[in-house]
Protein backbone atom coordinates (compact mmCIF):
# COMPACT_ATOMS: atom_id res chain seq x y z
CA UNK A 1 0.00 0.00 0.00
CA UNK A 2 1.48 3.42 -0.91
CA UNK A 3 2.57 5.54 2.06
CA UNK A 4 -0.02 8.23 1.35
CA UNK A 5 -2.83 5.71 1.65
CA UNK A 6 -1.45 4.53 4.97
CA UNK A 7 -1.40 8.15 6.22
CA UNK A 8 -4.95 8.72 5.17
CA UNK A 9 -6.24 5.55 6.77
CA UNK A 10 -4.49 6.27 10.06
CA UNK A 11 -6.32 9.57 10.49
CA UNK A 12 -9.51 8.29 8.95
CA UNK A 13 -9.48 5.53 11.53
CA UNK A 14 -9.65 8.00 14.40
CA UNK A 15 -12.43 10.02 12.83
CA UNK A 16 -14.43 7.08 11.52
CA UNK A 17 -14.55 5.88 15.07
CA UNK A 18 -16.49 9.01 15.96
CA UNK A 19 -19.20 7.82 13.58
CA UNK A 20 -18.79 4.22 14.65
CA UNK A 21 -22.42 3.07 14.36
CA UNK A 22 -22.50 3.89 10.65
CA UNK A 23 -19.13 2.56 9.59
CA UNK A 24 -17.89 0.12 12.19
CA UNK A 25 -18.05 -2.79 9.81
CA UNK A 26 -16.22 -0.93 7.03
CA UNK A 27 -12.91 -0.75 8.82
CA UNK A 28 -11.27 -2.08 11.92
CA UNK A 29 -10.86 0.63 14.56
CA UNK A 30 -7.32 1.68 15.40
CA UNK A 31 -5.78 -0.18 18.32
CA UNK A 32 -5.73 3.03 20.35
CA UNK A 33 -9.38 3.88 19.73
CA UNK A 34 -11.74 4.05 22.66
CA UNK A 35 -14.23 1.29 23.23
CA UNK A 36 -17.20 1.25 20.90
CA UNK A 37 -19.70 1.90 23.66
CA UNK A 38 -18.05 5.17 24.66
CA UNK A 39 -18.23 6.73 21.21
CA UNK A 40 -21.66 5.37 20.32
CA UNK A 41 -23.05 7.71 22.96
CA UNK A 42 -23.85 11.26 21.87
CA UNK A 43 -20.97 13.68 22.20
CA UNK A 44 -21.40 16.73 24.41
CA UNK A 45 -20.96 20.26 23.07
CA UNK A 46 -17.65 20.76 24.96
CA UNK A 47 -16.33 17.50 23.43
CA UNK A 48 -17.53 18.47 19.95
CA UNK A 49 -15.88 21.88 20.23
CA UNK A 50 -12.64 20.21 21.25
CA UNK A 51 -12.70 17.67 18.39
CA UNK A 52 -13.47 20.34 15.76
CA UNK A 53 -10.79 22.70 17.11
CA UNK A 54 -8.22 19.90 17.31
CA UNK A 55 -8.97 18.82 13.74
CA UNK A 56 -8.27 22.39 12.60
CA UNK A 57 -5.01 22.63 14.53
CA UNK A 58 -3.81 19.37 12.99
CA UNK A 59 -4.40 20.63 9.47
CA UNK A 60 -2.60 23.88 10.25
CA UNK A 61 0.40 21.89 11.49
CA UNK A 62 0.36 19.73 8.37
CA UNK A 63 0.29 22.89 6.25
CA UNK A 64 3.22 24.40 8.15
CA UNK A 65 5.22 21.27 7.43
CA UNK A 66 4.29 21.56 3.74
CA UNK A 67 5.51 25.17 3.67
CA UNK A 68 8.82 24.03 5.19
CA UNK A 69 9.34 21.14 2.80
CA UNK A 70 7.63 21.80 -0.52
CA UNK A 71 8.74 23.95 -3.44
CA UNK A 72 5.65 23.17 -5.51
CA UNK A 73 3.65 26.41 -6.00
CA UNK A 74 0.26 24.63 -5.98
CA UNK A 75 1.09 22.74 -2.78
CA UNK A 76 2.42 25.89 -1.11
CA UNK A 77 -0.66 27.92 -2.10
CA UNK A 78 -2.95 25.17 -0.83
CA UNK A 79 -1.03 25.01 2.47
CA UNK A 80 -1.37 28.78 2.89
CA UNK A 81 -5.11 28.45 2.19
CA UNK A 82 -5.39 25.78 4.90
CA UNK A 83 -3.58 27.93 7.46
CA UNK A 84 -5.71 30.98 6.62
CA UNK A 85 -9.08 29.20 6.71
CA UNK A 86 -8.53 26.86 9.65
CA UNK A 87 -7.08 29.73 11.69
CA UNK A 88 -10.18 31.83 10.94
CA UNK A 89 -12.56 28.98 11.80
CA UNK A 90 -10.73 28.18 15.03
CA UNK A 91 -10.66 31.86 16.00
CA UNK A 92 -14.41 31.96 15.47
CA UNK A 93 -14.82 28.75 17.47
CA UNK A 94 -12.80 30.14 20.38
CA UNK A 95 -14.86 33.34 20.40
CA UNK A 96 -18.06 31.28 20.40
CA UNK A 97 -17.10 28.97 23.27
CA UNK A 98 -16.03 32.01 25.26
CA UNK A 99 -19.35 33.70 24.58
CA UNK A 100 -21.26 30.54 25.50
CA UNK A 101 -19.11 29.95 28.60
CA UNK A 102 -18.26 26.50 27.31
CA UNK A 103 -14.91 24.94 28.13
CA UNK A 104 -13.79 22.59 25.33
CA UNK A 105 -13.28 19.15 26.83
CA UNK A 106 -10.48 16.82 25.87
CA UNK A 107 -11.76 13.38 24.94
CA UNK A 108 -10.59 10.03 23.52
CA UNK A 109 -11.36 11.02 19.91
CA UNK A 110 -9.33 14.23 20.11
CA UNK A 111 -6.49 12.36 21.79
CA UNK A 112 -6.54 9.65 19.15
CA UNK A 113 -6.58 12.27 16.39
CA UNK A 114 -3.55 14.06 17.81
CA UNK A 115 -1.62 10.84 18.36
CA UNK A 116 -2.25 9.55 14.86
CA UNK A 117 -1.63 12.85 13.14
CA UNK A 118 1.69 13.14 14.98
CA UNK A 119 2.63 9.78 13.47
CA UNK A 120 1.51 10.86 10.01
CA UNK A 121 3.49 14.09 10.23
CA UNK A 122 6.58 12.19 11.37
CA UNK A 123 6.32 9.99 8.26
CA UNK A 124 5.75 13.00 6.01
CA UNK A 125 8.78 14.73 7.53
CA UNK A 126 11.00 11.89 6.29
CA UNK A 127 9.98 12.54 2.69
CA UNK A 128 11.03 15.19 0.21
CA UNK A 129 10.39 16.47 -3.31
CA UNK A 130 7.58 15.00 -5.35
CA UNK A 131 7.09 12.09 -2.95
CA UNK A 132 6.36 14.54 -0.15
CA UNK A 133 4.02 16.65 -2.30
CA UNK A 134 2.03 13.61 -3.35
CA UNK A 135 1.82 12.16 0.15
CA UNK A 136 0.84 15.52 1.64
CA UNK A 137 -1.95 16.24 -0.82
CA UNK A 138 -3.28 12.67 -0.75
CA UNK A 139 -3.39 12.88 3.02
CA UNK A 140 -5.25 16.21 2.77
CA UNK A 141 -7.89 14.55 0.58
CA UNK A 142 -8.30 11.64 2.99
CA UNK A 143 -8.17 13.85 6.07
CA UNK A 144 -10.80 16.31 4.85
CA UNK A 145 -13.00 13.43 3.71
CA UNK A 146 -12.82 11.92 7.18
CA UNK A 147 -13.35 15.21 9.02
CA UNK A 148 -16.27 16.13 6.77
CA UNK A 149 -17.83 12.71 7.29
CA UNK A 150 -17.49 13.08 11.05
CA UNK A 151 -18.98 16.58 10.94
CA UNK A 152 -21.91 15.49 8.81
CA UNK A 153 -22.73 12.22 10.53
CA UNK A 154 -21.82 12.84 14.14
CA UNK A 155 -20.61 16.26 15.27
CA UNK A 156 -23.36 18.37 13.66
CA UNK A 157 -26.23 16.01 14.55
CA UNK A 158 -24.98 15.72 18.15
CA UNK A 159 -24.39 19.47 18.69
CA UNK A 160 -27.09 20.92 20.90
CA UNK A 161 -26.31 24.63 20.94
CA UNK A 162 -27.72 26.21 17.74
CA UNK A 163 -24.77 28.61 17.37
CA UNK A 164 -22.26 25.77 17.68
CA UNK A 165 -24.29 23.71 15.19
CA UNK A 166 -24.37 26.65 12.78
CA UNK A 167 -20.61 27.20 13.03
CA UNK A 168 -19.99 23.51 12.39
CA UNK A 169 -22.27 23.66 9.34
CA UNK A 170 -20.35 26.65 7.98
CA UNK A 171 -17.11 24.82 8.73
CA UNK A 172 -18.37 21.82 6.77
CA UNK A 173 -19.06 24.01 3.71
CA UNK A 174 -15.55 25.44 3.91
CA UNK A 175 -13.91 22.05 4.42
CA UNK A 176 -15.88 20.44 1.59
CA UNK A 177 -14.28 23.10 -0.62
CA UNK A 178 -10.88 22.12 0.76
CA UNK A 179 -11.56 18.48 -0.06
CA UNK A 180 -12.46 19.29 -3.67
CA UNK A 181 -9.49 21.64 -4.01
CA UNK A 182 -7.13 18.96 -2.67
CA UNK A 183 -8.64 16.39 -5.05
CA UNK A 184 -8.05 18.72 -8.02
CA UNK A 185 -4.40 19.20 -7.07
CA UNK A 186 -3.94 15.47 -6.39
CA UNK A 187 -5.43 14.55 -9.77
CA UNK A 188 -2.99 16.89 -11.54
CA UNK A 189 -0.09 15.23 -9.73
CA UNK A 190 -1.03 11.79 -11.07
Amino acid sequence: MPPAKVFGFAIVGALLWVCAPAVATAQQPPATAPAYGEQAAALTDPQIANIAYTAGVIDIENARLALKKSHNPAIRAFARDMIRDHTAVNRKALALVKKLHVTPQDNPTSQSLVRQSDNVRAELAKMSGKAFDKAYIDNEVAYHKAVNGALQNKLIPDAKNPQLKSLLETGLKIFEGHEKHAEQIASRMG
Partner: protein
Amino acid sequence: MRGLALAALFCTAGALFQSAAAATWHVVIRDIAYHDVPKEVHVGDVVVWTNKDFIDHTATARDGSFDIVLSADKTARTTLKRAGKIAFYCRFHPQMTGVITVLP
Protein backbone atom coordinates in the same frame (compact mmCIF):
# COMPACT_ATOMS: atom_id res chain seq x y z
CA MET B 1 -17.46 85.65 -13.98
CA ARG B 2 -19.26 84.22 -16.99
CA GLY B 3 -16.31 81.83 -17.48
CA LEU B 4 -16.63 80.52 -13.94
CA ALA B 5 -20.35 79.97 -14.36
CA LEU B 6 -19.79 78.07 -17.59
CA ALA B 7 -17.09 75.95 -15.98
CA ALA B 8 -19.42 75.12 -13.09
CA LEU B 9 -22.15 74.21 -15.57
CA PHE B 10 -19.83 71.90 -17.50
CA CYS B 11 -18.63 70.24 -14.29
CA THR B 12 -22.16 69.63 -13.12
CA ALA B 13 -23.21 68.33 -16.52
CA GLY B 14 -20.13 66.10 -16.62
CA ALA B 15 -20.88 64.67 -13.18
CA LEU B 16 -24.48 64.06 -14.13
CA PHE B 17 -23.50 62.38 -17.37
CA GLN B 18 -20.99 60.17 -15.62
CA SER B 19 -23.39 59.11 -12.87
CA ALA B 20 -26.06 58.36 -15.45
CA ALA B 21 -23.69 56.33 -17.63
CA ALA B 22 -21.78 54.31 -15.03
CA ALA B 23 -23.77 51.97 -12.85
CA THR B 24 -22.66 50.44 -9.56
CA TRP B 25 -23.34 46.77 -8.93
CA HIS B 26 -23.15 45.09 -5.53
CA VAL B 27 -21.88 41.54 -5.31
CA VAL B 28 -22.05 39.88 -1.91
CA ILE B 29 -19.96 36.91 -0.83
CA ARG B 30 -21.78 34.80 1.70
CA ASP B 31 -21.59 31.09 2.59
CA ILE B 32 -18.62 30.51 0.29
CA ALA B 33 -20.45 31.77 -2.83
CA TYR B 34 -20.89 34.95 -4.89
CA HIS B 35 -24.44 36.34 -4.74
CA ASP B 36 -26.28 38.94 -6.85
CA VAL B 37 -23.73 38.78 -9.66
CA PRO B 38 -25.04 41.00 -12.50
CA LYS B 39 -25.29 39.16 -15.80
CA GLU B 40 -24.65 42.15 -18.08
CA VAL B 41 -22.87 45.38 -17.29
CA HIS B 42 -21.13 48.07 -19.33
CA VAL B 43 -17.55 49.23 -19.62
CA GLY B 44 -17.01 51.84 -16.91
CA ASP B 45 -19.48 50.26 -14.47
CA VAL B 46 -18.29 49.64 -10.95
CA VAL B 47 -18.60 46.38 -9.03
CA VAL B 48 -18.58 46.67 -5.26
CA TRP B 49 -17.59 43.37 -3.65
CA THR B 50 -18.60 42.76 -0.04
CA ASN B 51 -17.30 39.74 1.84
CA LYS B 52 -19.76 38.78 4.57
CA ASP B 53 -17.98 35.53 5.43
CA PHE B 54 -15.53 35.32 8.31
CA ILE B 55 -12.86 33.85 6.03
CA ASP B 56 -10.91 35.73 3.35
CA HIS B 57 -11.80 35.47 -0.32
CA THR B 58 -10.70 36.92 -3.64
CA ALA B 59 -12.48 38.01 -6.80
CA THR B 60 -10.00 37.10 -9.50
CA ALA B 61 -10.69 37.47 -13.21
CA ARG B 62 -9.38 34.57 -15.27
CA ASP B 63 -8.32 37.05 -17.98
CA GLY B 64 -6.23 38.94 -15.42
CA SER B 65 -8.28 42.13 -15.62
CA PHE B 66 -8.80 42.26 -11.83
CA ASP B 67 -7.63 40.43 -8.73
CA ILE B 68 -9.15 41.70 -5.51
CA VAL B 69 -8.39 40.25 -2.09
CA LEU B 70 -11.36 40.55 0.24
CA SER B 71 -10.62 40.10 3.91
CA ALA B 72 -13.44 38.99 6.18
CA ASP B 73 -16.21 41.60 6.48
CA LYS B 74 -14.49 43.96 4.02
CA THR B 75 -15.61 45.74 0.88
CA ALA B 76 -13.63 46.59 -2.26
CA ARG B 77 -14.53 47.99 -5.67
CA THR B 78 -13.35 47.52 -9.20
CA THR B 79 -14.13 49.43 -12.39
CA LEU B 80 -14.70 47.20 -15.41
CA LYS B 81 -12.48 48.60 -18.13
CA ARG B 82 -12.84 46.25 -21.07
CA ALA B 83 -15.69 44.52 -22.83
CA GLY B 84 -16.06 40.75 -22.89
CA LYS B 85 -17.25 37.79 -20.93
CA ILE B 86 -15.25 37.77 -17.73
CA ALA B 87 -15.10 34.56 -15.73
CA PHE B 88 -13.91 35.05 -12.19
CA TYR B 89 -13.18 32.84 -9.19
CA CYS B 90 -11.78 32.86 -5.67
CA ARG B 91 -8.10 31.96 -5.65
CA PHE B 92 -8.44 30.64 -2.08
CA HIS B 93 -11.58 28.60 -2.82
CA PRO B 94 -11.56 27.65 -6.52
CA GLN B 95 -15.05 26.15 -6.28
CA MET B 96 -16.37 29.71 -6.00
CA THR B 97 -16.95 30.98 -9.54
CA GLY B 98 -18.98 33.56 -11.47
CA VAL B 99 -19.29 35.23 -14.86
CA ILE B 100 -19.99 38.84 -15.79
CA THR B 101 -20.62 39.93 -19.38
CA VAL B 102 -19.23 43.41 -19.94
CA LEU B 103 -20.82 45.20 -22.91
CA PRO B 104 -19.09 48.11 -24.66
